[in-house]
């Protein structure tokens, strides 16, 4: 073993030039690096994105012939298939990578000087903002066809493709109405071992859910007062009311499950005597009631909030080889720009008239997702979205405090 270590040390000294030459980490600068600047100028993107001429974009897009998408979702592929029916000249190649690998692949490739991707679309607000946008690995692109129909928070600084939510669910067969009104009730003896949660360490969206609750420490403290009438006393070493709620939840024998489907099943499956409360993605709660005959009820109103909204962003990758096809597909994924709120959208959503209106939104329309378009008719799964009082993930908090929340979670769950 000693020899091995010695050998490794020798290699360590001999090889560093070969190994680390590729990983030059560029620091964010004012403006774009030169090659990116030339590309952006040519593609009319980023700081050169003015007066979008859609006839020209379509013409060039057809010449480019394909568009490469790195996504956290496989549904992009079915949207791509529909897109290619309208533009048979343009082939959509989508990589379904999940959020973490989307970042990993984008960053590793670009660091190695490879610019393969055209569109990046994934959740993970902190990473997206600080590792992609801040480091010029993407440019934000809002199609002028849709810009006025999207509220500011959904397009600036990053365009949101869909919004989704982490919510609290109960079994409607076991309870006539929602069993709790305040999040602190989940930390009481009654719910010991009776709350399930999707593992926050399994994907970025779950971590964002709990981190955003932790972020709202003041509201959590007030909610505690409402719940017990007393002032909250923090446990030893716990910094604030946000963490305190998480601490008590974890130590109330919180049950951690691997998947969102598992969580929806835990609370929603019929024929249970005392089903647990579930903390998980609305997508599974809503769509599985229909697809799998579950009986999940979404709880609202709750003190102090009914859930957490987490966006999936969509941007054009740095030095994208097919920038115009990327623009066109971006517009398609948002939906038909002429959509109005009084339009009737009927099942099946991915066919006929419905898909003409929904376009790239079609595969998401029945999956608990909310379009950023103001005039997009509200999908049945998210019909209560506007009535619900939800917090939205804050990229800055996620970036700077996400790791602390993760550490806290790992420490407390392992004890």
């Amino acid at each position, binding site marked *: *073993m000693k*020899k*091995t270590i010695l*050998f*490794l040390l020798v*290699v*360590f000294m001999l*090889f560093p030039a*070969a*190994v*680390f030459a590729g990983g030059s980490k560029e620091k964010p600068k004012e403006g774009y690096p030169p090659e990116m600047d030339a590309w952006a100028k040519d593609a009319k993107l980023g700081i050169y994105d003015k007066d979008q001429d859609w006839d020209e974009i379509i013409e060039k897009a057809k010449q480019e012939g394909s568009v490469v998408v790195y996504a956290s*979702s*496989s*549904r992009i592929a*079915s949207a791509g298939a529909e897109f290619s029916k309208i533009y048979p000249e343009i082939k959509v*190649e989508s990589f*379904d*990578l999940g959020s*973490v690998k989307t970042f*990993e*692949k984008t960053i*590793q*490739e670009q*660091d*190695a000087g490879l610019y*393969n991707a055209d569109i990046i679309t994934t959740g993970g607000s902190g*990473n997206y903002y600080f*590792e992609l946008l801040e480091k010029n690995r993407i440019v934000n692109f809002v199609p002028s066809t849709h810009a006025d129909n999207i509220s500011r928070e959904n397009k600036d600084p990053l365009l949101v493709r869909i919004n989704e939510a982490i919510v609290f669910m109960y079994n409607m067969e076991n309870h006539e109405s929602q069993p709790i009104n305040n999040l602190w009730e989940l930390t009481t003896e009654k719910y010991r071992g009776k709350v*399930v949660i999707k593992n926050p*360490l*399994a994907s*970025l969206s779950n971590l964002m859910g709990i981190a955003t609750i932790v972020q709202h420490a003041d509201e959590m403290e007030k909610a505690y007062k409402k719940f017990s009438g007393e002032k909250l006393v923090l446990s030893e070493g716990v910094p604030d009311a946000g963490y305190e709620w998480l601490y008590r939840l974890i130590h109330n024998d919180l049950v951690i*499950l*691997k*998947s969102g489907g*598992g969580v929806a*099943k*835990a609370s929603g499956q019929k*024929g*249970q*005597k005392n*089903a647990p409360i*579930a903390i998980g993605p609305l997508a599974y709660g809503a769509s599985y009631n229909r*697809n799998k*005959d579950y009986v999940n009820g979404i709880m609202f109103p709750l003190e102090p909030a009914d859930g957490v909204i987490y966006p999936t962003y969509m941007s054009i990758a740095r030095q994208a080889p097919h920038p115009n096809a990327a623009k066109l597909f971006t517009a398609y994924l948002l939906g038909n720009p002429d959509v109005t709120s009084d339009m009737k959208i009927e*099942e*099946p*959503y*991915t066919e006929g008239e419905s898909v003409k209106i929904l376009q790239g939104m079609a595969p998401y329309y*029945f*999956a608990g997702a909310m379009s950023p378009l103001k005039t997009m008719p509200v999908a049945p799964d998210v019909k209560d979205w506007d009535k619900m009082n939800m917090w939205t993930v804050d990229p800055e908090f996620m970036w700077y405090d*996400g*790791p*602390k929340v993760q*550490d806290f979670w*790992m*420490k*407390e769950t*392992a*004890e």
Partner: protein
Amino acid sequence: MDSPFSINREIQMQQKIQFYTSKLKSKPEIILSIIFVAVFAFLIVVPFVQMIYTTLTYQSYDLRLERGAEEGAFTLFHYKRMFNSDLTQSLFLKPFLNSIKVGVSVTLIAMVVGSLLAWLFVRTDIPYRKFFQTIIVVPYMIPSWVIALAWQLFFQNTRTGGHAGVITSLFGLNIPDWLSYGFIPIVICLALHYYSYTFLLMSGALRTIDSELEEAGAIEGMTRSQILRKITFPLVLPALGSSFVLTVTRSMGTFGTPALLGLPVRFFTIPTQIYAMINARNMGDGFVLALVLIILAATFISINNKIIGVRKSFVTMKGKGFRSSPMKLGKLRPFLIAALVILIVCLIVFPIVMLALSTFMLLPDDYSFSNFTTHFWTGESDATISSGEPGVFKNKGIIGGIFNSIKLGVIAAVVNAFLGLLIGYTVVKNRGTKLSQLIEGIAFAPYVFPSIAFSAIYLSMFSRSVGPIPALYGTFSLMVLIVIVKNLPFSSRSGISAMLQVDKSLEETASIQGIPFVKRFRFIILPLCKSGFLSGMILTFITAMRELSLVILLVTPSTRLLTTMIFAYETQEQEQHSNAVTLILLMIIIIANVLIRVFVNRKSENTMNLG
């Protein structure tokens, strides 16, 4: 190659360079060693060094915990966090102890089961041996989480909500948490998955033992247990050692089963921690824990070497006559057959049937006839089911996926099997030297290298041309390369244990007669190591076909594999689709396994005749 002309030419060539190489030529292991060290330095040591480098510098994730730190600057930050902070207990120590507990328990059970089965099939008169031998390694081909799912189906209690398992629903028994989740079920499920290593290696070893040796013991008046302890055991010790090393390191490094069965009771292991860290893009901490696994593996290897190294290795493959007479099982026979059938039903038939059944059910867990559908196999796209994903046979990607997966598996299996023997040859011939230990050690390193880290590093290493190697990124070759390197540990282990049994004198005789190394290898070593070679090939084929984490960053739409499709379906929680593709993958592996056995058996009989 056999024509006198080519032999003449070779002899001429040799004469030309004989002067310079006369010393080296008789020792091809030296040349091979040099080649291996150089290639391994690049393919294994460089990524390893990069990993160490990552643990010793600030990564972008760390800037979030330590503001003001500079990315890339030297620091012991990660080591302090892991080994000397208030997080040590939960991030490192507890998961570490759990991993060791799991690894050792799994290995003990797996080795007992695997050895017994190997003995049963090789040395006794059990009927239908060929059939049993083929089917008994199937659990290794089934992804380990499928066995875990089957466990859940039976033993799940009400803790995780939803419908409880069969035992609770049918008999109203509330199963305690320790039997539903955590340590016990993890160990059982993994042991039932990993016994195949011991089984394959032990069958190989037992098959090559001349039973005359044991009979000689019996004539000398030794009891059965004495024969076992004094004769059989020492002879199979190298194979047992290899099985131990493979099983213990692999079961400590496995992620899927602990994630499924451990999470509900918060039973964390090192791999589940690494996964969580890499998932958060916290590479620094993740790699520190990965290094812990590597050091553990190195420790086990050196223990193994100590135990086997102090004894003289026993050579059983000699040029002399060879026979093996099966032991009569007598009265035990029906019981053993019954036990085997039960094992096969529980481990193979049941999980596969369950997997297959689930692909025909519109709603999961609803076993009524009206819920039966062939949609997930042959259906056209229907937006209300599985977000419009057409049935797997209507899916264009699947044909390409099948083709690519098979191509990857076959290339890796063949290349790895040859490399394995060459490494085995080099290591065994140099046995006792530091060089030998070094090669053995490095060849084993990829085994415990976290796949995702390995592929991320390969991605950046091969994105540009390096010397004579062109930029491989995005090509199928890179996937083949990384799979081969990652599988070297398997093949080198089986290569080494196969070579340990070959009598040196056979090759030396040929060498003295001036037969070149390539021929010696082809006509002497290869036929003698047939079973080791074969098991190495099968193991690699199976693992290559099942590889996911290693290739997920490297695939392109044209190089898509079945596993990456399973992954995509899984992340979308389209379980019927993912189970259907899993089933296809499984069937290909099983069929290929049978074909390889038949083909190689016939082939090698020819070779034997030629030799």
